[in-house]
């Protein structure tokens, strides 16, 4: 039995791949099955892989990403993942765009690679903004048309107020800041890209850009720019305050739309013959 002690310990450790709720229900008996099979010398590489794979699948099922999950919940989870991807992708893309546009990087600002990079990132950001905006606007419109807006108008109003306040504060605050870049993309040099947007994004990513910035350029800002150290995290906090309720309100509206769809479908659900096309031989 001692020769299996290591395997027993490994099996117990791998049980942690399964979600807590699953372990509460099946953990003890499942662990006993693993011990029985190990004592029976039934383990193999495939056996161990199966153990881990199903643990991961159980977790994905719990999160609604995979497995035997209702369509509405799959839509809900897909929307959450999409929203998260849009936010993360947008944030990273905006930071890179700002660095390239303002020109605070070691590489030559006007090089062809910089131009190509900023064009690609701009196109990607535009696509992200379009998809994210369409999703939010569509869900809001659906919610308003179905009369669900009133139930959540306080939170939505708060989100809108915060958003407007942040935009106004940033616009007013950064409009007077002189162009800090060393050149950047020709779009920004020729005024084809909105300068306030470039400055704002540059400021938002100042923590990042400081790392790469040339010391001479930092000194060129002068002592008067010290307030940026306070304003930049402050603006970021305001932006976060805005994003959280906005996202929550948009999400609630989208969820209300899904709920409405589910309510309408409930009347006919029990008459729909489901899965006949899949019925058949053992897979």
């Amino acid at each position, binding site marked *: 039995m001692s020769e299996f002690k290591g395997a027993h310990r490994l099996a117990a450790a791998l049980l942690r791949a399964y979600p807590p709720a699953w372990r509460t229900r099946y953990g003890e008996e499942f662990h006993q099955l693993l011990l029985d099979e190990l004592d029976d010398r039934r383990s193999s590489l495939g*056996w161990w892989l199966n153990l881990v794979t199903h643990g991961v699948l*159980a977790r994905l099922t719990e999160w609604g990403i995979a497995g*035997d999950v209702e369509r509405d919940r799959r839509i809900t989870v897909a929307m959450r993942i999409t929203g998260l991807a849009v936010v993360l992708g947008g944030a990273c893309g905006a930071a890179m765009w700002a660095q390239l546009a303002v020109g605070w990087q070691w590489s030559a600002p006007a090089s062809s690679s910089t131009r190509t990079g900023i064009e690609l990132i701009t196109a990607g950001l535009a696509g992200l903004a379009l998809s994210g905006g369409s999703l939010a606007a569509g869900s809001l419109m659906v919610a308003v048309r179905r009369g669900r807006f009133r139930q959540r108008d306080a939170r939505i109003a708060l989100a809108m107020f915060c958003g407007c306040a942040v935009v106004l504060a940033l616009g007013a605050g950064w409009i007077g800041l002189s162009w800090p870049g060393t050149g950047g993309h020709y779009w920004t040099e020729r005024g084809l890209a909105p300068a306030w947007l470039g400055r704002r994004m540059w400021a938002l990513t100042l923590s990042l850009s400081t790392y790469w910035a040339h010391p001479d350029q930092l000194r060129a800002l002068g002592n008067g720019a010290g307030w940026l150290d306070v304003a930049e995290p402050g603006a970021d906090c305001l932006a976060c305050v805005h994003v959280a309720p906005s996202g929550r309100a948009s999400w609630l509206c989208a969820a209300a739309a899904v709920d409405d769809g589910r309510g309408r479908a409930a009347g006919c659900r029990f008459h729909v013959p489901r899965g006949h096309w899949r019925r058949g031989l053992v897979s």
Partner: protein
Amino acid sequence: MLLAVAPGHRQLADGQLGELGRYAGPATLILASLAEGEKHGYGLTKDIADFAGVRLAPGTLYEALSRLERQGLIEPVASEDRRRPYRLTVRGAEALRTQLDEQRRVAEIGLRRLELGVRPL
């Protein structure tokens, strides 16, 4: 008739084991094993290996068991042992019968066609 299922999970009509997707195969084997009487996980694995020649890996076995339990086709039996036995429910027996009838129908069609002289290339 539809079965009671846990919130957030799909509903399954009686006899539609195909709705279990890729777990329909293991589910049929488990139900067939439990048709003989209640068994725990290791007992199921050994019995299925004996009568079907298939060794179900633990993850696959318990994924199928949890789905079957959620759909009300099997139920756990109280036990003081760590090895918890399961037994077939009435609905599970009906679902197994439907599934096996369907498999027999397909098998008979296939065998009949073979007897008609259609030979593989």
